[in-house]
């Protein structure tokens, strides 16, 4: 069976697949919300979902316009505070997966959502951290979803908002940080990280693209194993859930 799907839908499905039942997941804005609720509605019904501002286990009516929208807090089991979610769950060390979107990332999974350009010269300021730095610092592992473009997957980011493996090797651990990035999911491929050097490593290529296309659109050379499989495509049921239930207004899947 050949299904039509968008690259955003594939990213959401790939993200969902990285989550296991019973995990505690801190979710950032955008596609991570779609991916997380897809997992919850399929193979991970006992997952606990956290939004930084004080929300546990909502059943969103839609993805809303963002975390400030009561549509995404709908039917939550807990409505509390930053200190309760980012402090007593995340900083305490109880978050299994932090699920973030990114503007720019480098080969060690360091994320920039603060500024584009030269921080000491001309730059354009963006959204900043929110809870992203906190999640990237204290979650047991982090998954990043972002667009695959050479100007976004950079050798070095303009500004490290949320640290990945910092300068590679054991530099993250030496900075006193737990966990670290486990996956980067783009619209062309899925990456992991080398266990020793902590460099980004190609894990799978999306069906619609090629290895050359993946590598030509990156600002650095990831580790590429000899055999790289294709990413598993979405199922009809996953697409139906995304389109009819999770993001019917196609806010994030446009």
């Amino acid at each position, binding site marked *: 069976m050949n299904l039509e799907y968008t690259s955003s839908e594939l990213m959401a499905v790939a993200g969902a697949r990285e989550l296991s039942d019973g995990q505690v997941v801190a979710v950032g804005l955008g596609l991570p919300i779609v991916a997380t609720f897809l997992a919850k509605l399929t193979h991970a019904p006992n997952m606990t979902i956290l939004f930084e501002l004080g929300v546990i286990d909502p059943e969103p009516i839609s993805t809303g316009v963002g975390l400030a929208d009561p549509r995404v807090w709908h039917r939550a089991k807990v409505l509390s*505070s930053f200190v309760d979610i980012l402090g007593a769950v995340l900083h305490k060390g109880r978050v299994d997966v932090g699920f973030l979107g990114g503007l720019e990332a480098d080969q060690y999974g360091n994320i920039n959502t603060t500024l584009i350009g030269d921080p000491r010269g001309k730059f354009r300021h963006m959204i*900043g951290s929110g809870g992203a730095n906190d999640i990237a610092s*204290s979650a047991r592992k982090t998954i990043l979803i972002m667009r695959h473009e050479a100007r976004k997957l950079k050798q070095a980011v303009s500004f490290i908002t949320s640290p990945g493996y910092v300068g590679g090797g054991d530099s993250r651990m030496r900075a006193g940080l737990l966990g670290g990035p486990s996956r980067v999911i783009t619209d062309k491929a899925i990456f992991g990280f080398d266990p020793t050097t902590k460099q980004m490593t190609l894990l799978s290529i999306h069906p619609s693209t090629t290895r050359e296309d993946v590598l030509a659109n990156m600002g650095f050379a990831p580790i590429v194993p000899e055999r790289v499989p294709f990413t598993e495509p979405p199922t009809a049921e996953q697409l139906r859930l995304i389109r009819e239930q999770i993001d019917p207004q196609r806010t994030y899947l446009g």
Partner: protein
Amino acid sequence: MNKLVTLADAVASIPSGSHVSLSGFAITRCNMAFAREVIRQEIKRLTISQCVGAMDVDLLVGAGAVERMIYGGGSLDRFGRLAWVNRGIEDGTLIAEEYSSLSIAFRYLAGSLGLPFIPIRSLAASDLMKRLQEQDASQIATITDPFTGDQWLALKPLLPNVSVVQVQVADEEGNAWILGPRWDNTEQVRASKRAIVIAEEIVSTEVIRREPERTVIPGLLVSHVVHLPFAAHPTSVYRAYDYDAEQIEAYVEAQNTRESFRAYLDRYVYGVKDHWEYLERVGGTKRLSALRADPILGY
């Protein structure tokens, strides 16, 4: 003690140069009527803090009321960016101390409990920390855990002069309930010298005494209470009204240039004498009725 005053009187209690913490998060429970009155009263050189920068601070920055921000990043969610905040940072006219949500929340928490400092894992190995240390080395320090010898970052307590908090329900003493998530609001109020409560509804203290577990802001911290329906418009107040998408879009459109923003201010801030005139200008009872929250859904 009855602390009910007009918005104008509450705002007049804030001198230029104050450090004010605001209760908004992106486009919800923002201190919009408050910000408009601050602009009309020409209060200047404010330091504004909040965990997540919101529409309230962007309006204040755009109107030139803000000298310094202490915040953890922010946006207007899918509607757009904090364009005035961003521009102020880009052209150097705004001093911005940028943290993360938890590091601001912990700074308020330390302030609220009278702690001299608070250790945190966040910010380490990030450029947020590097830039904060460059900006003002007195705000962040490293400290050795006396029990393990590990190195930690230590943050200074954040101690605003006044916290302005938009709530759904309060009594005339300022005992207040917040429905929905409270993000950093309860720590802000406790860390601040005093608080101004802006309430959609004022209830008798008898009502407060019926469910005292819900009183997340005790009146003893509150100096002024303002009863002001739709005070957060065009942002939302959970269980009271939804955001006004058209009006937020009009704001985002106005962010484009100095001129378009001046026109926005003339129309919605300077061109109205108070909150009631503002509400008429954005469509009056007919428009506001359309925004009223569904009693089950809460928006």
